[in-house]
């Protein structure tokens, strides 16, 4: 089962099922889940694969969101081009920011990212208010032209496009996590960075590349947000929402392939349902997170994978590995 869900077929079936849910669940809800899961994927990768917890994710989300927003407001009207431009914009900024952020470890990395998020929020809200319009934001509803093939100005179009983007992101991360040496080196950075240096790896490059990939993914989610909501304001970089990506990653299972999707589904679901009854719905997310963490610190998908892995290892260990010529 585990192998199935980690395979390409698993990704396609999971997303196909999720896509079919639009007959049961509201499209708006599903679109938000998909976009949020792309956002959480980068964060989950950083936490689960590199052991770097970032409370600055809203800043990287905002890079993408404003990349698309500024393009649509000032330069063009094509949403597809806006998304492409914003991903490039995110990529360049993350390359710059990453070159100093990844020099930091553990708590310093976490807190400096949070500080950077505060700076970014200030930039978009106050310093660049002349162009970003601060809290009022950039309203894009009349500035987006229908796009060919998939019309991103319609709910159905953006829903389908976000889904396709998510599938592409999932395939990319599946390759990264399961099939590439780079993915393995990321895991080793988390496990024992010094050991990796003994083997001849320059770990700075590994962390930098992982940072750029993870946060450019967040940038893509930001661009989709802007196109989906037809607006962007400074609140997207608000540091108060910094824990959301981390909570979703932990809830679903940091570093797992499907963790961000499960976490986003639960998080957005709880937000939509519970907020109708209680104003502080975050309490429920907090409680759920504590319960899941106490159950094994691996999140929902991580715990499930761990359980299946134990079963597999039991079967492997049952087979004798020693032979006469076995050596040491």
């Amino acid at each position, binding site marked *: 089962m585990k192998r199935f869900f980690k395979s390409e077929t698993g990704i396609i079936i999971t997303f196909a099922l999720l896509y079919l849910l639009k007959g049961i669940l509201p499209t708006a809800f599903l679109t938000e889940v998909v976009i949020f899961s792309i956002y959480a994927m980068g964060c989950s990768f950083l936490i689960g694969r590199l052991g770097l917890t970032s409370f600055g994710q809203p800043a990287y989300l905002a890079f993408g969101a404003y990349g698309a927003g500024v393009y649509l407001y000032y330069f063009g009207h094509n949403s597809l081009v806006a998304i492409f431009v914003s991903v490039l914009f995110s990529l360049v900024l993350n390359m710059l920011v990453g070159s100093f952020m990844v020099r930091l470890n553990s708590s310093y990395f976490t807190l400096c990212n949070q500080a950077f998020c505060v700076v970014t929020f200030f930039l978009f809200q106050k310093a660049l208010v002349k162009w970003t319009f601060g809290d009022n934001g950039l309203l894009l509803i009349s500035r987006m032209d229908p796009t060919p093939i998939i019309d991103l100005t319609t709910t159905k179009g953006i829903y389908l496009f976000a889904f396709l983007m998510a599938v592409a992101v999932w395939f990319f991360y599946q390759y990264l996590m399961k099939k590439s*040496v780079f993915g*393995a*080196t990321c*895991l*080793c950075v988390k*496990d*024992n960075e*010094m*050991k*990796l*240096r*003994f*083997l*001849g*790896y*320059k*770990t700075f490059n590994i962390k930098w590349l992982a940072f750029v990939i993870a946060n450019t993914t967040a940038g893509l989610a930001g661009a989709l947000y802007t196109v989906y909501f037809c607006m962007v304001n400074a609140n997207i970089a608000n540091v108060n929402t910094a824990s959301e990506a981390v909570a979703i990653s932990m809830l679903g299972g940091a570093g797992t392939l499907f963790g961000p999707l499960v976490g986003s589904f639960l998080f957005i679901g709880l937000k939509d349902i519970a907020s109708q009854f209680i104003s502080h719905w975050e309490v429920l997310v907090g409680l759920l997170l504590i319960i899941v963490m106490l159950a094994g610190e691996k999140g929902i998908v991580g715990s499930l994978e761990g359980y299946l892995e134990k079963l597999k*290892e039991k079967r*492997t*260990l049952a087979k004798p*590995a*020693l*032979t006469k*010529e*076995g*050596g*040491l």
Partner: protein
Amino acid sequence: MGMPNIVEVKNLNAAYGQSKVLFDINLYIKPNERVAIVGRNGAGKTTLQKCIASLLHPTGGSVLYNGAELVGKQPYEVARLGLKYIDQDKHVFLDLTVRENLELSSYATGDYDWDKVFKHFPKLKILIDRKGAYLSGGERQMLMIGRAILGDPKVLLVDEPTEGLAPSIVDDLVTTFHELSKDCAIMTVGQNLSFVSRVAERVYAMKEGRLVAEITDEADIKNHSYCEYL
């Protein structure tokens, strides 16, 4: 005229913060030589190896590898030059299988000839799909050495290789070190004197951060006569 030294340490000094731990160390390693450093706990043996591998920057002196200065280089640069360090904690990458651990080393060095690893450690071939977390101490040691010999290093620095290993495994390790030294020099650090006497061709005795003796006589090494210096 003898062979040139592959590693040469000159007037090496090192400190952890304010406390000085190495004092004017001078030593050398010849190609394909098996050298051991012995000393009590806290003598500075591991610190010396870490300085050679550039894991710790010395406060003074120099470390030459094939005539090139290693002080100031990063550990990954030293590893790429062909000087590999195997530390004592038997830590392999726990989430990766034996195959992935080897692949990691192959990717870094461009050396995918795993037959030489399996020649020394055939058991690794059997354990190829087992995760690092499920390997025994001996198996981890095999994997660490196997990983290190990919890329044909010229010097292996092995810190306390016998720690926590069963006597039968230590015996195998002696044979392995003799075989490995046909291709590279080995500098081992340890307190297992029986192991040292069977492996080393030359022994340095360390005491309180200083090299106090160099024993080259085979009989002296076999008789553990260097113990008087420790």
